[in-house]
């Protein structure tokens, strides 16, 4: 009996081993496919005092990210077909949320923040639960997908001056800028994302994309790249690369940019904030913006014709 038992036992183990081998082969085959598995380059990230290592994020990437962004970072994960907007394609290294000028790579901190914050109006969840070190490792990991990370450094982050106080004048100037810079062409006159060009917008992969609707959402509504006034400032001064949203850094002075921020906040009609308080104190009316005297040289002629300028 004993001999029989051990023979059966041996046979059983053997069968299990063979079966496991076959199963492993069968599973392995479609994964390898025509594409070779990606080598994990020794990329790093630096966020505050943390250093992220790509190698440390291999299993986390597969577990949390690959489902949408794909094993090869090409945004062809198995869920990607169902998503709109599509997941970020890491192989082209173009990123929406940056503190750096248009056309440049984001900083490690920018990517780190995006992972932790998630991307509102998309399927990218808030990954705060992953913990800072894991997120720093993931930032390093997504750099293995594009050679751009080996050839280039991140852009120089834009400088954001201290925010001036919110006043009805600053909101009025912001509104004038919103009109002059034609933000309304896409975002609509009331920021509802329904401007005349909204319907035809496409991203850099020629897929339809919607402009941000400021008016939708409750008190806690967020932007794609954050929820603070600084984030809003960054969004239009750096542009969201890969989307139709351009950079206005060449055409807006820093203080004017703050005025635009203050006005944009009033478009978030359901938000309880400083800007909406100032606006309701002014009985909800934004006065027409009067251009300040531009240069001292022009002052004398202005004196001669009071009320003549527009």
């Amino acid at each position: 009996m004993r001999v029989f038992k051990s023979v059966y036992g041996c046979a059983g183990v053997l069968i299990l081993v063979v079966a496991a081998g076959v199963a492993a082969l069968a599973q392995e085959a479609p994964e390898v496919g025509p594409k070779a598995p990606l080598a994990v380059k020794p990329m790093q990230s630096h966020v505050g005092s943390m250093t992220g290592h790509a190698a440390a994020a291999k299993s986390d990437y597969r577990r949390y990210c690959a489902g949408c962004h794909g094993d090869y970072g090409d945004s062809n994960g198995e869920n990607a077909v169902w998503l709109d907007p599509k997941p970020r394609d890491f192989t082209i290294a173009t990123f929406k949320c940056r503190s750096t000028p248009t056309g440049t790579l984001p900083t490690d901190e920018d990517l780190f923040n995006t992972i932790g914050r998630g991307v509102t109006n998309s399927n990218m969840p808030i990954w705060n639960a992953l913990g800072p070190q894991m997120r720093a490792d993931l930032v390093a990991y997504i750099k293995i997908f594009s050679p751009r990370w080996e050839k280039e450094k991140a852009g120089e982050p834009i400088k954001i001056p201290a925010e001036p106080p919110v006043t009805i004048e600053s909101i009025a100037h912001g509104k004038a800028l919103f009109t002059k810079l034609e933000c309304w062409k896409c975002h609509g006159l009331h920021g509802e994302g329904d401007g005349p060009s909204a319907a035809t917008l496409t991203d850099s992969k020629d897929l339809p994309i919607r402009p941000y609707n400021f008016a939708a959402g409750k008190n806690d509504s967020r932007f794609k790249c954050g929820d603070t006034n600084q984030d809003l400032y960054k969004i239009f001064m750096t542009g969201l690369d890969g989307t139709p949203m351009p950079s206005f850094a060449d055409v807006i002075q820093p203080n004017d940019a703050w005025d635009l921020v203050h006005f944009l906040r009033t478009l978030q009609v359901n938000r309880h904030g400083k800007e909406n308080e100032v606006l309701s104190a002014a009985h909800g009316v934004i006065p027409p913006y009067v251009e300040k005297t531009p240069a001292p040289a022009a002052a004398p002629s202005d004196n001669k014709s009071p009320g003549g300028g527009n």
Partner: protein
Amino acid sequence: MKAQYKFALTACALLIVGLGLLFWAPTTRPVSAAATGGITGTIKLDGTPPRQKPIDMSKEPNCAKEHASNPVTTETVVVGPKGGLKWVVVYISEGLDAGTANQVPPVKPKWDQKGCQYIPHVIALDVNQHFEVVNSDPHSHNIHPLPKPNGANHEWNRSQPPGTPPFDQVWAGEEVAIPVKCNVHPWMHGYMAVVKGPTAVSDENGSYTIKDLPPGNYTVSAWQEVYGNQSQKVTVAAGKPATADFTFKAK
């Protein structure tokens, strides 16, 4: 005897200086026009060009008004009255010496946005050649070039409201050609071809002339936005330009 020595010495010195000048001159002075050649030719389309659709600019009243009497169409294939193909970029793809290849033209071409169209529709630029992006319209445009990912050039997207000073821009690497679009006006399409060495873009007769090309054997390429690339070998001699005609087949 002494006078003879003196003469020989002076002659020697003169000879040395003369030879020096002879060797020194061509390397430092820009190549004189007489010593260079060029390539000229005509580009034709064989077959019926695809219909160019009229552009509805009613969403931008300024532009609709500007073109009211002279409606504009798409410009993907523009054939002139004599069958010449316009907007073809002709450039040297092989055979350039380093000096000619790395010489950046001192001119700063203009890429204008006028009447909701790019003027010119296709521009040829040298690597590292500065060019100006201008907005002549009374409304905003966003300039959004889309180079191939992971190359030397990168996608950027800038807003240019009316009255903004020109943007000074430059491309870092060769690329034929970078598509440019304006997201606000989805009908606006143009191309920037970035190549080293002398280039030309064909006119409405399909003719082009590449100038300032040192004599030698070259491969000359022609690129059209719908029909792609063609190339042929050309030998350029000093003085008179060589000929290279191209014919693209309509799809």
